[in-house]
């Protein structure tokens, strides 16, 4: 047994690290270091930077314009990004719809969509959940009816992250009502500028506008924007979920958060807090090694299975725990709070400077045990797939 990385992998890591040190756009870096909210343009700039470095397709095969990196290289790359305080790469294009298009789309669709995804010329969002279909995703009702060379789409998608910025949405739609609800679902790409689409913000409890409900009323979608076959959407969706799991544990971001917490609270000499930080650090150490075990299995040719549910459950628990410790450390000074953008510069209340983002982050991160298949659903998956009960 050997968990060390190869010479080449370490050299690769060093290359990424020094490239980030030199070229990571400073205006994005500064905001990230100060815990400030990034604008839409900041996000675009960051993703364009990835493209310029030829990193945009970090998890894609070479033939579609990707890096062709090994799972270990992808792992090291994502670690370095987090350690350099980069924002999380938006998964919707490059990790979600992109792999579906290059795996199941036709040549024309590949030519049409893949370059814009890599170059971040198009911002994608995900049309999966519906008001009545969350954990039970396959019960979705948004309907697409073929009329000539167009589908007519009616329905609503919800919890759509950053739909307000999106140019395109990939949707699971029902093209047929079937006995088995998983059948009759299709995978459709829709231009967000199509008439009949309305994006309604959902403000979350931290006061932020991150998610939306997207309404479709008689939206005319060219039939050539259907991916693969009608009725096979559920298969594609499951394929996509397997891709989404990469890095789901969020270990590198947690490491950055823990060191930030230590730095912000070092001068308190608060033994009780320090013990709690140590406990969560131990949990994180164990999770990191669990992730490495999964990585070793994949590198050896295995497939990520239900074990990725462990990473999702423990990862989100640790992320939430760290956010709680930030709040605890800020004590009563969390009380003055005016929203996720913080205070106007001439109007900052007393107390530690992390108080306001701590509470924003704490409230925002309640979502992590709910999204991407709630942690209850993840436990069902483990019970069924691993324990066999």
């Amino acid at each position, binding site marked *: 047994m050997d968990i060390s990385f190869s010479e080449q992998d370490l050299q690769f890591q060093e290359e990424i690290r020094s490239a980030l040190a030199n070229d990571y756009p400073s205006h994005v870096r500064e905001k990230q270091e100060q815990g400030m909210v990034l604008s839409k343009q900041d996000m675009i700039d960051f993703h364009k930077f990835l493209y310029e470095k030829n990193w945009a397709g970090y998890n894609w095969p070479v033939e579609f314009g990707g890096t062709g990196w090994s799972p270990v290289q992808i792992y090291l790359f994502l670690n370095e990004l987090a350690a350099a305080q980069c924002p999380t790469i938006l998964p919707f294009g490059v990790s979600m719809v992109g792999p579906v298009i290059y795996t199941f789309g036709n040549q024309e669709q590949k030519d049409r969509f893949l370059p814009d995804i890599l170059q971040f010329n198009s911002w994608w969002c995900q049309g999966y959940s519906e008001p009545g279909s969350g954990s039970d995703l396959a019960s979705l009702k948004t309907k697409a009816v073929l009329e000539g060379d167009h589908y007519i789409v009616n329905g609503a998608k919800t919890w759509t992250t950053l739909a307000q910025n999106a140019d395109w949405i990939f949707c699971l739609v029902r093209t047929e009502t079937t006995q088995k609800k998983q059948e009759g679902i299709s995978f459709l790409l829709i231009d967000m500028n199509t008439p009949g689409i309305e994006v309604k913000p959902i*403000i979350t409890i931290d006061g932020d506008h991150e*998610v939306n409900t997207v309404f479709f009323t008689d939206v005319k979608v060219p039939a050539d924007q259907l991916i693969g076959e009608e009725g096979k959407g559920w298969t594609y969706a499951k394929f996509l979920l397997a891709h989404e799991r990469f890095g789901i544990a969020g270990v590198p971001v947690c490491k950055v958060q823990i060191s930030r917490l230590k730095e912000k609270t070092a001068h308190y000499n608060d033994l009780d807090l320090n013990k709690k930080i140590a406990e969560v650090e131990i949990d994180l150490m164990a999770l990191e090694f669990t992730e490495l075990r999964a990585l070793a299995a994949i590198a050896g040719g295995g497939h990520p299975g239900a074990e990725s549910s462990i990473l999702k459950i423990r990862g989100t628990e640790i992320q939430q725990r760290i956010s709680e410790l930030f709040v605890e450390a800020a004590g009563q*000074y969390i009380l003055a709070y005016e929203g996720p953008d913080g205070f106007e510069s001439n109007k900052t209340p007393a107390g530690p400077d992390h108080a306001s983002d701590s509470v924003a982050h704490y409230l925002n991160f309640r979502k992590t045990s709910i999204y991407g298949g709630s942690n209850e659903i993840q436990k069902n998956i483990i019970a069924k797939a691993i324990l066999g009960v």
Partner: protein
Amino acid sequence: MNLNYSDEQNMLREQVLKFCETNYDFADREKILDSEAGYSPENWKEFAELGWLAVPFSEDNGGYNFGPIELTVLFEEFGKSLVVEPYLSSVVMSGTILENSNYSAKQALLESIISGVHQISVAYAEANIGYNFLDCVTSLDAKGDNLVLNGSKTIVLNAANSNQFIVLAIHNGKPALVLVDSDTSGLELQSFRTLDGQTCGELTFENVALNSDALIASGDEATSLFNQMIDVSILCISAEAVGAMTSAYQKTVQYTKEREQFSQPISNFQVLQHRMVDMFVETEITKSLLIKATLQLDSKDAETSKTISALKVQVGKAGKYIGQQAVQLHGGMGVSNEMSIGHYLKRFTVIDSMFGNTQHHINKYSSL
């Protein structure tokens, strides 16, 4: 042994319940929070007319001779609907200090609080002292026959609506409580919204000149008045938390019965049932410590402070658990600001952070 509420106490509960049912659904509350004052002056007037603002005060001071039990009845009902009117800051905090003091002007001040025309906030927290409020830096010094106040106070509840402040300061090396008019020259106010949508403020005192009769208490008397005020305030927000816990678990049960996934109400799933049972159990356990602390405070038991710390610890832990689980079981709806449930989580977070958080009171308990 009898742990039943009296008829009078039950009537008070009914009255508050009815008021909240008529005037305090979630949309009403949102509208109130969106207003500039952050509370409803009409509701405040009604509180005064219903006699609620007189609840904790003795008859001599224009009150009903009620005590901690009645206060917890009020607050438990307030907590169910997340009432935002400044009862805690003006009536409980300022009222408790004044009521127990020997301050010459207290009767007039209490009457003005009871009538609802006047609001007073206690300025107790500072930037660098955490929960050790009595170790403050704000200073009250003698200057001839007069006094001069310098320093700053933070997270003063309801500050922008208050006519006066009771400020905790150091006078001759010891704590003192001093009354300051909000329009006094040298006093500056910066107002903020709180995490749960209410208002608070930061006060800065620059050579604020005060008459010697502004001094409410100093030395040991001030310390004792202040500590009593903290105990009563913790009791009240704990009762509020118990009310909020009750609503949070009940709303969650209701939601899981209505929400269908996999062709059935999600309340059918045992894992969710057990989670909701735990929420209920935590609520009941918290209620037990609340009643114990209430009775001890009422009888001026020597162990009161210890029980108050125990209660605050339980409120912190249970509030966090119930608030987080209520959000989790509501799924995406739980993190949506348009639904009431996430606002319970915010209130639990605020309650835990006030007057010493869970860890602070674990430490205090073990030191007593």
